[in-house]
């Protein structure tokens, strides 16, 4: 008790000026330290320039990515044609067997015929020799090069990646690959550095890609007479590559629909069952019948 009274009496009443200065100074310190903090740590650090990041692809309104839509199998057919006639000379599609094409892209006969155009190793025969046989539906689409080294040697040191899972393997998926294939400008923008043997493509991280533009208007001739413009071929081949990476998509969406339908039926059923089980509870009537009050008790 005493100590406190002494201390208060010794300082006396604070002058309003001192108080105001203290408040102002502490506020300034607070604001200043926040500003200093944001100056030091506030802005995000970019490890890469926008050119190194690459241009983010525009989101295109793909129909097959909608919840209730399937692949357009006519487009898959066209896309497979583009893959075969254009991309297959550099890119493998090693995870796709001919049998997977049956019923989605080709008919059985077409797929068999295609498989038979290539030779595959047989099992060792009685003398242990491995011979060649024509392909079967269970074989996988052959790669253009024997191994990665051969692929690099033929492409200026750059490895054309396998395209089986490329749609899943790149940020932006379909949009990225479509943009990449159609995005080669006639000439790089002023001042841009393009390395030797590289081509300017804004969508490729670093903007210098070893693959030159491959799609040109009228490059393939579609059997369904769709005009084979650059963007049409790119769209078709991307949808095909999406199928290659995600062949279960159509079934997956149908399974989702099944789940929702069955759940809806079960939910409706459970509502009716609940109504039935609760009927007695809901329809009962509780009546309070107070006992007659007689004068006897009151007095």
């Amino acid at each position, binding site marked *: 008790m005493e100590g406190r009274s002494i201390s208060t009496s010794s300082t006396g009443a604070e002058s309003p000026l001192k108080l105001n200065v203290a408040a102002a100074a502490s506020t300034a310190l607070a604001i200043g330290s926040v500003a200093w903090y944001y100056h030091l740590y506030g802005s995000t650090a970019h490890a890469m320039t926008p050119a190194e990041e690459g241009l983010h692809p525009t989101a295109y309104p793909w129909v097959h990515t909608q919840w209730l839509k399937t692949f357009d199998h006519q487009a898959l057919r066209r896309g497979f044609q583009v893959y075969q006639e254009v991309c297959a000379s550099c890119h493998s599609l090693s995870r796709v067997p001919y049998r997977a094409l049956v019923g989605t892209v080709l008919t059985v006969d077409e797929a068999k015929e295609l498989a038979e155009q290539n030779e595959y190793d047989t099992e060792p025969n009685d003398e242990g020799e491995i011979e060649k046989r024509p392909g079967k539906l269970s074989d996988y689409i052959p790669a253009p090069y024997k191994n990665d080294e051969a692929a690099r040697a033929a492409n200026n040191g750059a490895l054309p990646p396998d395209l089986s899972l490329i749609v899943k393997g790149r940020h932006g998926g379909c949009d990225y690959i479509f943009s990449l294939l159609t995005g080669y400008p006639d000439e790089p923008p002023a001042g841009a550095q393009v390395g030797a043997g590289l081509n300017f493509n804004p969508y490729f991280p670093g903007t210098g890609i070893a693959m030159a533009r491959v799609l040109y208007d009228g490059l393939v001739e579609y059997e369904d007479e769709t005009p084979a*413009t650059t963007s049409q071929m790119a769209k078709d081949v991307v949808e095909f590559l999406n199928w290659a990476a995600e062949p279960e998509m159509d079934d997956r969406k149908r399974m989702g629909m099944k789940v929702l339908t069955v759940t809806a039926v079960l939910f409706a059923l459970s509502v009716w069952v609940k109504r039935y089980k609760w009927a007695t509870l809901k329809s009962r009537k509780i009546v309070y019948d107070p006992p007659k009050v007689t004068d006897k008790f009151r007095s």
Partner: protein
Amino acid sequence: MGIWDTFTDLVEAAKPWATVEAEAPAEEPQEEEQPEEEEEEEEEEDDDEPKDPKEQLEEECKNSKQCAPAKHHFDECVERVTNASDDGEAKEDCVEEFFHLAHCASQCAAPKLWSILK
């Protein structure tokens, strides 16, 4: 596109007379008149290669009001850099400006392009 398509698709799939063919459908005898017509069309198409609608649409978009700021910056940069490199010292490039313009143009052209492509 839209929810209505879903219903028509479902009805189509549920119809007992809808067929799914894994085998090549039997070839239908073609009418005699058809090939003549097709030949005429092909001849017309063969004269000029199909034109890519993407390039055309993006060109229009680049010159539209929507992309005017990006185009302005890009053109200005190209002028600046070409002048500087003529003098022998270009210290910058127009990649970023190009990105902004290309992004604007492709975003503007995307829905129009998809309405044209099959």
